[in-house]
């Protein structure tokens, strides 16, 4: 049902006419996020400028039973911000102010639309550090990161977005504004409500402002790249590093297919003639970094590393990390459609899982590139396919089914950092079990009885 003119004119009053988009040419580009093959044209796109505008829009939508899908830069990888049918899209990228950096309490307060990399850049000016660094950090918004509980390359040592959220301002499904948490390191007053909203994928409330924890910035960092003739050797290197009581900030791997694509894009001299590359980084006090990196290099050599490249300066280190961050998009060079998975297994099952993925791809005659966070057990097998080839897409679905089944059998999860959204919805119940699934739905119903916020995501 099209939006009534009275609702559109009310929305224009709230956010200003230039921030209400309804023309086809304006709304088509909001019909998707970073996920392949999912597309739905929204009725209208609203670009609010502050929390009170978001609240007024949500209240209006609730009164008129119009579904609302919230998005930031639309870089999500599970379809979480793909519009629902007949919805209004609230795009929060214009709420992009950093409100304050508190160098005494080590916190930063920011509006939800601030770009993730800008949070760290603001912290950096005070010698501070915001560690979560999802692959899309140059454009993803902090609100989206919190809503999806995004990970990144530094998860092994520094954790994920959740570990840095101290407080949230949230617009509830009825348009009321609620605030949770504070700048206290300790706070056990009542339920930890902020934790309910972190990773809730826009289904429980709309995050409009965040209070984040910062850390002192590490003074030294060393980045190393090792190549291997066998994937197991890379995995064994990772296990041995952790067994040696070293927690590096980054242990990332790329397989042969991914290496080729990344090198085609970045042209930084990655070796193409190996089965695996391991990107290792340690940071902290200079003495600790020197000691740990020497040990890591020795362990890598002992486990069959061929070429080892140590970044000579910050620029080279950044280049290597940026190359890894571009892995997913670079894989899109090979075939028209790129279907990215996010399965995660306990660390000690990683080598087994990587081998299984290769086997499944071969069995179903599919091209797959695999990369990911070896230190976290978080894998990104990426199917390189063509959405218009029906027979091949059926094989992709069969292969995914087998990978998910094995992941769950190994005690893993269907998604480590991308969220359930639309893409992982079919498997959620199988992973969490009937009772937990029912409880999630009860929580959703309690907070959003009209099912208007991001309906159809996570579960039906």
């Amino acid at each position: 049902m099209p939006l009534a003119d009275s609702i559109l004119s009310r929305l224009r009053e709230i956010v200003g006419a230039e921030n209400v988009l309804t023309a086809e040419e304006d709304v088509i580009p909001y019909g998707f996020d970073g996920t392949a093959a999912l597309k739905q044209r929204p009725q209208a796109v609203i670009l609010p400028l502050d929390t009170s505008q978001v609240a007024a829009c949500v209240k209006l939508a609730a009164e008129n039973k119009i579904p609302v899908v919230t998005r930031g830069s639309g870089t999500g990888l599970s379809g979480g911000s793909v519009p629902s049918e007949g919805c209004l899209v609230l795009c929060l990228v214009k709420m992009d102010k950093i409100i304050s950096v508190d160098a005494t309490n080590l916190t930063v307060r920011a509006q939800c639309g601030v770009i993730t990399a800008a949070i760290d850049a603001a912290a950096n000016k005070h010698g501070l550090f915001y560690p979560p660094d999802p692959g899309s950090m140059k454009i993803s918004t902090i609100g989206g990161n919190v809503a999806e509980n995004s990970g990144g390359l530094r998860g092994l040592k520094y954790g994920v977005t959740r570990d840095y959220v101290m407080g949230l301002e949230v617009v509830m499904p009825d348009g009321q504004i609620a605030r949770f948490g504070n700048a206290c390191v300790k706070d056990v007053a009542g339920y930890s409500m902020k934790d309910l909203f972190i990773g809730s994928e826009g289904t429980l409330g709309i995050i409009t402002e965040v209070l984040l924890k910062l850390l002192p910035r590490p003074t030294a960092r060393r980045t190393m790249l090792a190549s291997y003739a066998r994937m197991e050797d890379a995995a064994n290197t990772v296990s041995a590093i952790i067994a040696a009581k070293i927690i590096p900030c980054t242990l990332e791997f790329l397989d042969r297919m991914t290496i080729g694509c990344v090198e085609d894009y970045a042209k930084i001299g990655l070796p193409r003639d190996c089965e695996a590359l391991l990107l290792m980084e340690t940071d902290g006090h200079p003495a600790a970094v020197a000691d740990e990196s020497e040990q890591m290099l020795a362990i890598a050599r002992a486990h069959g590393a061929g070429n080892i490249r140590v970044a000579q300066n910050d620029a080279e280190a950044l280049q290597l990390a940026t190359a890894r961050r571009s892995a997913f998009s670079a894989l899109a060079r090979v075939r028209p459609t790129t279907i990215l998975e996010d399965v995660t297994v306990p660390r000690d099952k990683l080598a087994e899982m990587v081998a299984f993925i290769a086997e499944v791809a071969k069995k179903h005659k599919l091209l797959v590139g695999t990369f990911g966070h070896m230190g976290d057990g978080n894998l990104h097998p990426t199917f390189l396919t063509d959405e218009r080839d029906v027979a091949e897409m059926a094989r992709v679905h069969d292969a995914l089914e087998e990978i998910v089944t094995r992941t769950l059998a190994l005690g893993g999860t269907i998604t480590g950092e991308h969220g359930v959204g639309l893409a992982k919805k079919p498997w959620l119940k199988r992973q969490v079990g009937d009772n937990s699934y029912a409880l999630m739905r009860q929580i959703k119903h309690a907070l959003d009885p009209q099912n208007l916020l991001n309906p159809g995501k996570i579960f039906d």
Partner: protein
Amino acid sequence: MKPSLKLLDYSILQQCMHCGMCLPACPTYDATKKERHSPRGRIALMRAVADEELPLSPAFADEMSYCLGCLACQTACPAGVDYSNLLETARAEVQSAGLNQTFTSRLWRAVTIRGLFMRPRLLRFAGRLLWLYQRLGLQTAFRKLGVTKLLPKDLRRLEPQCPTIATQFSPQLIRPIESPTKKQYRVALLTGCVQDLVFSDINRDTADVLLANGCEVHTPPVQPCCGSLHAHNGEATLAQVLARRMIDLFPPAQFDAIITNAGGCGNHLRHYGPLLAEDATYRPLAKIWDTKVKDIHEWIMEQDCRAPRAGLGDLTVTYHDSCHLTHGQKVTKQPRELLKLIPGLKLVELPEANWCCGSAGIYNITQPEQAEQLLVRKVGHVIGTGASVLATANPGCHLQIARGLRQAGSATTLLQPVTLLARAYRAEKKSA
């Protein structure tokens, strides 16, 4: 090149997996924060047109025109999307559908793109008339008397931006064949259109740099336009005509390199292969041509450019990357390395050096507001470096930023890297 988005190989559209990595690189997205004004948003619209989900509408035409075509998204795109091809195809389709054309815009197009820029002798004649008008003081007089106010609105806005035409054009400064003392290479020098009328001295400097590095320089006095203006503005057929004329004038097999010193032309020149892909006669020649076209900085650094023995005194220089040199041709290190060869020259990095200055071909004419915002941003950064010289290597950027610096009252001069190098070589002779 295909005439419509629907006939285009669909996988070029599919190549975009809408990851959003292009958004922070796009000046129009940065300015508006609206997806429609981003590369992936525009590709979504193009795909909707190809899928027949969106008609070719005036708003679609506007959007294709609002894109700077700076190609910063191509540098940012890990997936390797051929945005340049998509944009040119979309613009050609908009053009042939006759969308958004007013009488003035049609007249303007007939005079410039279809007229002057198809006929090099006529273009020089028009340039000479303009030179006379400027030389005889008519420009100043007309402005004082307010005669320029009688011009149509578009021309009135452009009149003050009109560059000063050079007293001598390229053929008066460069002989058809010039030989170095020790010949190692045989190269062709493309003199360009705006470059020839306004910056013929830079063509002379380019020839001097080539001669100092063992190149025999072939510079035919009358050369066609390369067609980049046409291709960027939806005139694919005319671009093909001009490409064939170029290949006829410079048989690519006869030269070690075909040298261009204008970033915007260069990017178009090295893609004649795809442009003439459907032309059985010219396709093989175009393929060779594409491998022979070299940007002057790229070629000269490949040949281990000889460092000048004399410098130009203590000079602080900063460098602005022209979009099509850096994002189109991927020539970024070479101009900087070239500058660093000059004794006494200190190169300071310009913040956002590869962010578009707003010139973007004729964008400053078609989209003056957005172009002005970008110019102000660029000039602010240039002044912030404290450099006394801004070096850049494209006539469009040169004119645009020089105008911006003048408006801001800055004393920073604008010179091209080859000019600085040629002056250093000349200084050798003086000191010897």
